[in-house]
């Protein structure tokens, strides 16, 4: 049942991506509206899929790669919808929709069976740790998209290419503001995600920190964002530098999330997928 909702959600994200891309090309408001609506309805169905899967499995469904990818995509769309409420930047839509789709497609292919939960994962800390970590990641995904747009737009203004791209992209001021907002939301979430992870590790493995690759890489990610936040607040790093940092930071997140599981082995590898 939950996979049905999951599949409809994918279809809607696909439709949203398609409409949003058309919007960027043709600049017809209606297309952006359809894109947004598809994304919104997709998000609602996606949420339903999670609730159903939770009820079926009896635990928070973020324990294998299918579930995590799907949850990551869900969080990214959710964060975008929340941000859209404050910053009505339609051009972010196609980026977010594409990113969600890129995460959803492998999730669709990967095995979706609900397996019994490994004993070590049976804990209240599971949902707390995972939800904070992923929400933080999703906010940084938004910062990543804004960063890319900033770099594109900054190049247009700097090199005086006042053409089609310039007109379609939002102002540098707003993009930089979103970068900062994302940082102020994402950094605390990531920090809490890491701390709750450490506490859970103390219960589960008997040690707060064991330099497992995932722990190491999340620390590296955390340091990157901490550096950006520090520089922003002290010497006023902004604009291009902040955008580049947001892009690098997100690559670190992706590696922590996927690269570690696929390339390295460690305590966080619970299932083959």
């Amino acid at each position, binding site marked *: 049942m939950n996979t049905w909702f999951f599949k409809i959600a994918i279809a809607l994200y696909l439709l949203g991506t398609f409409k949003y891309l058309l919007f960027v090309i043709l600049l017809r408001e209606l297309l952006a509206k359809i894109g947004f609506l598809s994304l919104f309805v997709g998000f609602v169905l996606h949420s339903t899929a999670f609730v159903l899967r939770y009820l079926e499995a009896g635990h928070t469904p973020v324990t294998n790669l299918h579930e995590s990818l799907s949850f990551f995509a869900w969080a990214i769309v959710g964060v975008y919808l929340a941000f859209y409420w404050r910053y009505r930047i339609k051009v972010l839509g196609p980026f977010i929709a594409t990113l969600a789709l890129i995460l959803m497609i492998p999730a669709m292919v990967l095995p979706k069976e609900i397996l019994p939960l490994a004993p070590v994962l049976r804990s209240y800390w599971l949902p707390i740790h995972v939800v904070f970590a992923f929400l933080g990641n999703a906010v940084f995904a938004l910062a990543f998209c804004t960063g890319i747009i900033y770099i594109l737009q900054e190049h247009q*203004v*700097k090199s005086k290419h*006042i053409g089609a791209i*310039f007109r379609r992209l939002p*102002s540098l*001021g*707003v993009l930089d503001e979103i970068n900062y907002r994302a940082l102020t939301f994402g950094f605390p979430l990531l920090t809490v995600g890491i701390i709750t992870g450490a506490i859970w590790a103390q219960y589960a493995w008997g040690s707060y920190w064991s330099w497992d690759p995932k722990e190491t890489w999340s620390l590296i990610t955390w340091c990157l964002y901490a550096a950006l936040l520090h520089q922003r607040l002290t010497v*006023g790093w*902004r604009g*291009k530098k902040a955008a580049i940092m947001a892009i690098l930071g997100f690559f670190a997140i992706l590696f922590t999330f996927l690269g570690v599981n696929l390339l390295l082995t460690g305590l966080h590898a619970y299932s083959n997928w």
Partner: protein
Amino acid sequence: MLIRIGDRPTVFRYELLENDLSSLVCHKMDVLVIGINHRTAPVEIRERVSFSGEELLRSLGRVLEYPEFTEDMIVSTCNRVEIYATTRDPEKGIVALKNFLAEYHGVSLDDFEKSLYVHLGSAAIRHIFRVASSLDSMVVGEPQILGQIKEAHNIAAYHNTSGIILNKLLHKAFHVAKRVRTETKIGNNAVSISYAAVELAKKIFGTLEGKAVMLLGAGEMAELAAKHLVAGGVQRVIVVSRTYQRAADLAMAFNGEAIEFDGFGERLEGVDIVISSTGAPHYILHPENVLGVIKARRNRPMFFIDIAVPRDIDPRVNEIENVYLYDIDDLQEVVDANRDRRAREARRAEEIVEEEALKFYNWYASLDLVPTIVSLKEKFEEIRKRELSKALSSFARITEKERKSLEALTSAIVKKILHDPITLLKSPGLNTDTNEYVDTVRKLFRLDAKGRGQPKRRGGDDGT
């Protein structure tokens, strides 16, 4: 040789039928436009035939004194002088309007006749729609012309010189202008240097609310750009000039602050936008100055607009992070690119105009429907009476009863014959080609050949 009859969609039929039916051109109401604009004549000629406020009223009435015209209005701006009128006799109407212009202004017609353009019927409708939509303007897409036409129409409507046709036509023109504005991006891109500067500033800062601008040098262009920036939300204006008085005057206009030229360096830190237009022979701002300023601003972005020639600001300033420098050529390029875009949007606008002109033309053609039906009936009635009286006179003796039944019989025949064609003409489904049917009916039954109190018009003379 005479009128620009080629503007009429019905010209084909005219030419085809010319030889045998040359006298049968219908007397329908036509919209006539005669005018002169920035493309057809230089200002020296335009100003000689233009109408100013007071005169306009008088001339509106004077045009209607000509028997050819039923309605008129006059648009007179610095770029165009146009008279719109409705007439049943375009050929005479054109001559009358030309003479009116010459006589009224005391100018010889030869001096400006070459510069005049004349549009008739659907071409006139299209022309008025294009003008109102700013497709015929010097700067395509600039919105002022719409206001000017509205004003001109208000005057005509207020003094009742415009009537049902012109009123409906002008309201439609305003509607078309609005459609063009909302459905194309014709007005979206800045096509003047100062607007381009504002557009760029908005893309850099997001909002101009609470931003500060410094005018380095108080030239006219700088003043104009500052005006646009203030309209866009900029709140503080600092004016720097080598002549303090000039700075003070300008600052007053913006409710800003004037400072001495030597002191501007220290104040740079507090401004976001700098418009430089001094007459200095060399750079007055170097990368090292700006680097220090930007550091003190903790990297808050700055936008430098250098409209001075020779330039005031070292172009290397643009290489500093979070600093954007545009000189006059850069801005000109933005403006040129926007002009090209406007031209592309204008093509879409032309389609809208075409579509609306066609719709309007059909409405306006249908105005001739009722008179056509009336004359058709009249003609048949006339024939019936004539033939009946001929027949009656050949009878030696006829009773009143017989006469009455003959009367009824012939009336019934005429009525039955006319029933179907009239039903067809009146049917709403005919909309798109009412005009053609009306035209055909008028020709088939020679409705225009009969002198029905209207002046007989000689259609296309030999070899039109």
